[in-house]
């Protein structure tokens, strides 16, 4: 009836994201909701459970290429990782190796560890990290997609940064400790979590892209995420010519040594810089940054990076 707006990635459920990212009708879910593998730990605390424990995993096609897709549901317990939830992600990463997937699409939408099963969640995230390394070692690129309501925080903020590419929307957030936690412990002067503009200048898609932590800034549009993920997948090396292999590769060491220098340089930024605004000022960018749309913003940064 009406001309429909682009389908918001942020507003879509994990299931709808999966549907929109993959070629139509190509998705097969593993351990789907009908299996009812819910969290016994939530139930023990009389908290609501979900049929898929808040994460959808399976395989499908992206531009006719076999991919594994993992999508956390940010609205269920803040997308937090519990025992079942974590095991599903780990299993899916390992299965990507088995089925020789062309890539893994990891839709991170999580505050980190689920407190109701905190110990299981913490170990699970460590296991996810190991499985992710294994997939990468097998030459399968893992692409993080961040644009949900919870962003990528805690252990899942680390996991997102382990991926080969990180696609983020302006609404997406990426960090370690949530602003509320910092405010609670260190006081409102350190971090006013109610100042949304500040929160986004510290953790939001634009500043993450500016610092090179995100590969690309995207519109809040599932189709934009799909197109960017496909491009990343096609641009990545295929299994045959992967530089990642068992044993010490001089390549890998040098890459990490270069990353070390890069991160050291960033940490040496003027200690007075505590706000994304200052980072942009430091780069000679002004107020105009705020209203630039993602395409314009990527172009602006690419021009500087060249």
């Amino acid at each position, binding site marked *: 009836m009406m001309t429909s707006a682009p389908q918001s990635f942020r507003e879509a*459920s994990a299931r709808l994201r999966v549907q929109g990212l993959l070629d139509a009708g190509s998705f097969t879910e593993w351990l789907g*909701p009908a299996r009812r593998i819910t969290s016994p730990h939530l139930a023990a605390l*009389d908290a609501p459970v*979900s049929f898929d424990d808040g994460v959808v995993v399976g395989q499908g096609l992206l531009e006719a290429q076999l991919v594994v897709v993992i999508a956390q549901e940010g609205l*269920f317990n803040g997308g937090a990782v519990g025992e079942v939830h974590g095991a599903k992600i780990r299993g899916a990463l390992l299965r990507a190796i088995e089925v020789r997937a062309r890539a893994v699409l990891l839709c991170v939408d999580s505050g980190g560890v689920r407190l109701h099963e905190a110990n299981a969640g913490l170990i699970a995230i460590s296991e996810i990290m190991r499985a992710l390394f294994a997939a990468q070692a097998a030459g399968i690129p893992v692409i993080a997609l961040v644009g949900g309501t919870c962003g990528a925080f805690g252990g899942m903020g680390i996991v997102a940064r382990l991926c080969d590419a990180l696609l983020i929307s302006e609404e997406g957030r990426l960090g370690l400790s949530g602003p509320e936690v910092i405010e609670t412990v260190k006081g409102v002067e350190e971090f006013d979590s109610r100042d949304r503009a500040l929160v986004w200048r510290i953790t939001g898609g634009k500043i993450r892209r500016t610092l090179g932590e995100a590969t690309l800034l995207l519109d809040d549009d599932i189709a934009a995420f799909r197109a960017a993920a496909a491009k990343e997948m096609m641009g990545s090396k295929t299994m045959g010519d992967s530089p990642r292999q068992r044993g010490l590769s001089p390549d890998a060491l040098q890459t990490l040594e270069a990353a070390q220098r890069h991160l050291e340089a960033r940490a040496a930024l003027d200690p007075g810089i505590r706000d994304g605004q200052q980072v942009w000022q430091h780069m000679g960018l002004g107020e105009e940054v705020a209203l630039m749309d993602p395409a314009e913003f990527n172009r602006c940064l690419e021009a500087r990076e060249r």
Partner: protein
Amino acid sequence: METLHLELPSLQDDTLSPQTLLHGVVSSGNLEVLVEPGPDAARCVFEVQTAAHGFSEVWQAVLCDFASRHPVGGLTFSIHDAGATPAVVSLRLDQAYQSLRTS
């Protein structure tokens, strides 16, 4: 959590696809509903787990209306509810039914 089991008469629609379907999300004021084939073509089964206590009468009323509004005989609806209002419950059930028809 409170649980509720309800079996209600309803017409059957043979054209509905027999696959299972999950609709909605368990988050504050919302619910998820899993639709699956049920045991009896003339009845529909509801399994509800809800965080809101003391609302079994309201649930009964909402689900009765739903079962009489649509031909959902032969289906089972399993619901995890995190405090949805009856309006949201009805809407999600209607949407789930609609998805069944179009999938």
